[in-house]
């Protein structure tokens, strides 16, 4: 009973905060209220997620709300990113306020949409009904649209238009897929309120219509893949990421893409069981993952804008996660681990890019040089996160990519292995070529060095230390959580999942 109420609160708290932000009269109060609301959500969400990871799924509202290991893990990571980004947003917008770039109206708009987007993403994770999950994804698209153009300029409007239109069309395809999944359950005689419930479909996956399910999965993969930024449907992504204010880019890259990918992961066990465990769906995922890695690698070489560079890194890493799920086995575990690592790392990178952009007045990497001397803290944040992103040991991203290579070898997927290594190699060389002058090049003398406050230093140091520690040592509870979440995708029954014989990295 208690947990049921908590599931409802998880949506209500951010929604109420968003509404409250519209009524407040000073920018500082608005930012404070926003951080408080997000903070409460984080505390609640982590508590519920922890319960679920320790003692099994909870559901509420006649099974319409449901949290299992997979959604609890994703919810936990999402809230971590949201909490960090909210703290950063208050730092970032205080600077804008001081320089007179932020009006009260803009602050209200930002805070209410920011909290609204949190509510919508939470809805995606806690809904058991696949239709409502879709509604949540579409709602995030529409709510975050205006976050891109908090500052209305020609470029930001262009980015927002492309984002809304491309993602809405893509997500419409995902709805078509959801309908087809519903149609594939036609012979089962489920009652109307049950027909799209994930738990029911999962339980009856073997008796769904396979041809219908295959058509559905293609629509779902293209639809949610558009929102997740998988190549070749990624065209909106670099524009939106480069034009949005830095905290918004951090959320976009840090977890909105993963939210859409989570929806695909939800369907994987159903499609696998429904098509007779032939690995048909997994092969599709592997293909999309590899294409994304290679396309991103090609574009990373020729970027001049720092935030666009980071955006293409997102395409690459979403590709890596998709590849991991496609490989299955240890790959699924590595993919979920990589989700956490990439989100943390990319959030930090966008934080640094945003603050450095404010100091230099540009994101053009030809003018943005010598950041280590101008702003040691944020410079270290940017350089460290870029190194981690391209997979330098001993950061955690290196470890999860290594596990993925092992999964590919185990499975004998040599072609995937070679293409992945090739793509990662190109990214390594290309991004390092950008990163070194960025860190130690000759800075333009006009730029004023800025000192970072305690909060700013913490925002840099904590994620970096976290990534470093996770790279060297994996805590037991995290490993259990990852295994439990991976077992949902791999469709292992909960009785087996808890046993120590699960797959160890």
């Amino acid at each position, binding site marked *: 009973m208690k947990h049921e109420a908590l599931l409802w609160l998880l949506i209500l708290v951010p929604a109420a905060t968003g509404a409250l932000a519209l009524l407040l009269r000073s920018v500082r109060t608005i930012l404070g209220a926003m951080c408080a609301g997000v903070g409460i959500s984080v505390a609640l969400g982590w508590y519920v997620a922890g319960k679920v990871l320790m003692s099994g799924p909870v559901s509420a509202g006649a099974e319409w709300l449901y949290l299992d290991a997979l959604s609890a893990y994703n919810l936990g990571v999402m809230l971590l990113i949201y909490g960090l980004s909210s703290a950063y947003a208050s730092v970032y917008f205080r600077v804008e306020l001081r320089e007179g770039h932020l009006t009260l109206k803009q602050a209200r708009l930002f805070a209410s949409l920011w909290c609204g987007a949190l509510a919508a993403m939470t809805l995606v994770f806690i809904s058991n009904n696949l*239709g409502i999950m879709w*509604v949540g994804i579409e709602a995030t698209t529409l709510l975050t649209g205006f976050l891109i153009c908090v500052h209305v300029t020609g470029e930001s409007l262009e980015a927002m238009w492309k984002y809304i239109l491309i993602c809405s069309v893509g997500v419409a395809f995902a709805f*078509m897929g959801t*309908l087809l999944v519903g149609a594939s359950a036609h012979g089962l005689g489920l009652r109307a309120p049950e027909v799209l419930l994930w738990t029911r479909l999962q339980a009856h996956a073997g008796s769904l219509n396979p041809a*219908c399910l295959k*058509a559905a999965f293609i629509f779902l993969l293209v639809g949610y893949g558009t929102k997740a930024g998988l190549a070749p449907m990624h065209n909106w992504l670099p524009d939106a990421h480069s*034009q949005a204010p830095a905290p918004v880019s951090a959320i976009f890259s840090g977890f909105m893409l993963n939210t859409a990918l989570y929806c695909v992961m939800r369907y994987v066990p159903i499609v696998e069981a429904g098509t007779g465990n032939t690995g048909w769906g997994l092969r599709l995922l592997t293909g999309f993952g590899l294409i994304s890695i290679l396309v991103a690698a090609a574009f990373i070489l020729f970027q001049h804008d720092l935030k666009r560079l980071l955006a293409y890194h997102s395409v690459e890493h979403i590709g890596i996660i998709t590849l991991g799920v496609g490989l299955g086995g240890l790959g699924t575990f590595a993919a979920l681990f990589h989700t956490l690592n990439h989100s943390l790392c990319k959030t930090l990178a966008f934080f640094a890019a945003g603050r450095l952009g404010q100091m230099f007045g540009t994101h053009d990497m030809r003018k943005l040089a010598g950041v280590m001397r101008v702003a040691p803290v944020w410079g270290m944040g940017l350089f460290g996160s870029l190194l981690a992103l391209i997979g330098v040991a001993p950061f955690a991203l290196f470890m999860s990519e290594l596990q993925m290579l092992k999964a590919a070898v185990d499975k004998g997927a040599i072609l995937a292995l070679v293409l992945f290594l090739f793509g990662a190699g190109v990214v390594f060389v290309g991004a390092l070529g950008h990163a070194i002058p960025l860190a130690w090049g000759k800075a333009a003398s006009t730029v004023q060095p800025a000192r970072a406050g305690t909060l700013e230093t913490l925002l840099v140091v904590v994620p970096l230390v976290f990534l470093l520690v996770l790279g060297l040592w994996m805590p037991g509870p995290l490993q259990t959580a990852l295994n439990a979440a991976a077992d949902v995708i791999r469709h292992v029954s909960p009785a087996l999942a808890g046993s120590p014989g699960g797959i160890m990295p």
Partner: protein
Amino acid sequence: MTDLILVLVVLTNLKLLGSSRLGASIRVVAAQGVMLGLLPVLAHVHELSLHFAALAVGTVALKGVVFPWLLFRALREAEVTREVEPYVAYITSILIGLAALAASFWLGGRLPVSTVEPSSLLVPSALFSILAGLFLIVARKRAVNQVLGFLVLENGIYTFGVGIVAETPFLVELGVLLDAFVAVFVMGIAVYHINREFDHIEVDRLDRLKG
């Protein structure tokens, strides 16, 4: 009766492909929305429940009244000429539309759905709406026209939903309708901002972001 509506939907799509006036296009899409709103009622006429009636009223009100109102307002505030300004000429558009229609019938026959459909025209006409909507989004310059294309695409998926999953839960349908409403609302505001910033609503000049 359902067949009649579906044929009309196909014809409205063709009309849209050949239409040169934005105002007329908005009205055609509104008419299409109203007809589709009535579709579930007619398809389930023997088991008419409050569920279908409420849904029909909601759909007709949104697609027939609210959406056109929002779009006309965006158009008025943007004060643009009322031409559609196509990338692809009207005659070519209609010819492509006919090809898409043929493809829809071919694909509709092959799609492995065990339909609860009341009509064999349902799946092909739904697919045709989806294709026509996509074409309108890609082949027209006006931002308003892209919104119309999105609505036609949405209508196609709606038709599909009526035909193959009769038992979609009410709450889900409500959420979907709400999302469509917010989408058009947001796009309407975006059109207004784009017009203020660029003095036009032609998306082909939204080309500053590249690479």
